[in-house]
């Protein structure tokens, strides 16, 4: 079992402030709801090569609404 197999991405929509930073970091993993821009998780199991961008998304989120558990 590799490190990548046990990564879990958690989004907290209540916390989200719709800055859009996660979409800029990884637009194949995160999207925004049309009605209010709140984060949606498009892919909860991104490929290992996308993980750096997913971690970047968690790091730039101003509301700490994204957690990457590994």
């Amino acid at each position: 079992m590799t490190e990548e197999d046990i990564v879990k991405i958690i989004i907290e929509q209540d916390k989200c402030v719709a800055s859009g930073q996660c979409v800029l970091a990884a637009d194949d993993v995160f999207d925004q709801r049309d009605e209010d821009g709140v984060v949606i998780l498009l892919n909860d199991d991104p490929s290992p090569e996308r993980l750096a961008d997913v971690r970047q998304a968690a790091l730039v989120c101003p509301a700490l609404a994204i957690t990457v558990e590994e």
Partner: protein
Amino acid sequence: MTTIPEYNIARSAKCPLDPAPAMRARQEEGPLARVRLWDGSTAWLVTGHAEHRAVLGHPKVSVEPARGIPRLSPAEAATMDSLAKAGSASLGFIMMDDPEHARLRRMATSAFTVKRVEAMRPATQEIADELIDRLLAGPKPADLVEAFALPLPSLVISNLLGVPYDDHEFFQANSRTIINRNSTAEERGQAQHRLAEYLDGLIGEKLAKPGDDLLSGLVERVKAGELSRQEAARMGVLMLFAGHETTANMITLGTLALLRDPGQLALLRESDDPKLIASAVEELLRYLTITHGGLRRVALEDIEIAGQVIRAGEGIITVNETANRDPSVFPDPDRLDLQRNPRLHVTFGYGVHQCLGQPLARMELQVAYPALLRRIPTLALAAELEQIPFKHDGFVYGAYELPVTW
């Protein structure tokens, strides 16, 4: 016993694109420092990047004037007092804590999603090209602010909100008064009042005849009873002035920074890689940090930041421009490096109040700089640095004029 240094945001005339010497001096002493304000009170000045994020992301830190955020001038103190008297609805959500802040902010966020903003890119490109056509057909030297940097975002935000651009002289003049640190409380209050009345009038028109713009969207919320008409007008004012003062100053100062660094300018002009263009915009946002002087907060409980206890009730000023030059996050921070993609910059702030319009600002800047540099390859400054009137007095840094030729 050492004396507490004064809070001072005056940039040096020789290095007008760098943070103020006094701010840098505090940063060299450590990530947190005590500073004395004009009224003799003291506040915590937060200059480090990690500490900046820790404060602005802290749940026990408030942005509300009534709770005691630091006031940076007599005029501002008077403005805050009169706003507090007028009630919370007149403050706008940038001066409210959650949950009220979140409730109001979420009513405006749909217009600024990355997707919605991306859909505005072709129209923004057309605006940029038309403005450049007109600039090139006119006399030289020309003022880049008036010819390009201000009308571009002003046209974009007017279209987005549904505000007639024909009224731009009116709303630009009032925006300038609001944003000028030296405006008296009375002048600022009057400007805010005029804009609020103007927006209220537009809301009235859109109640009768809705369109597909952002104000019409807010009008729907008013009809549904989710938002008061006063709140809607206040949000309109906020987005109207936030939407053009900021981007206009970034276009102006970004162009200036590039013209002073031909190597970096050539890199951007000769690239059609969207990743490089995006990185260049992030770097100019970091390097210039037009949102300077500090974001104000107050601790609601005793909190610990960088090993220092900030007591309940103490004021805090978090400084974007020093956080953005923190060498532990941005190596060689005083160098403009368009390839560094500094995604952790805090020019849009941090925490739940981080700029709502940031996707729009990014898109506008990604259009503006390449358009300008490619269409006018001989673009050059038509003034010495010392002659450029910088906005030392603004909440948002910039220049009143930028003479250019080609």
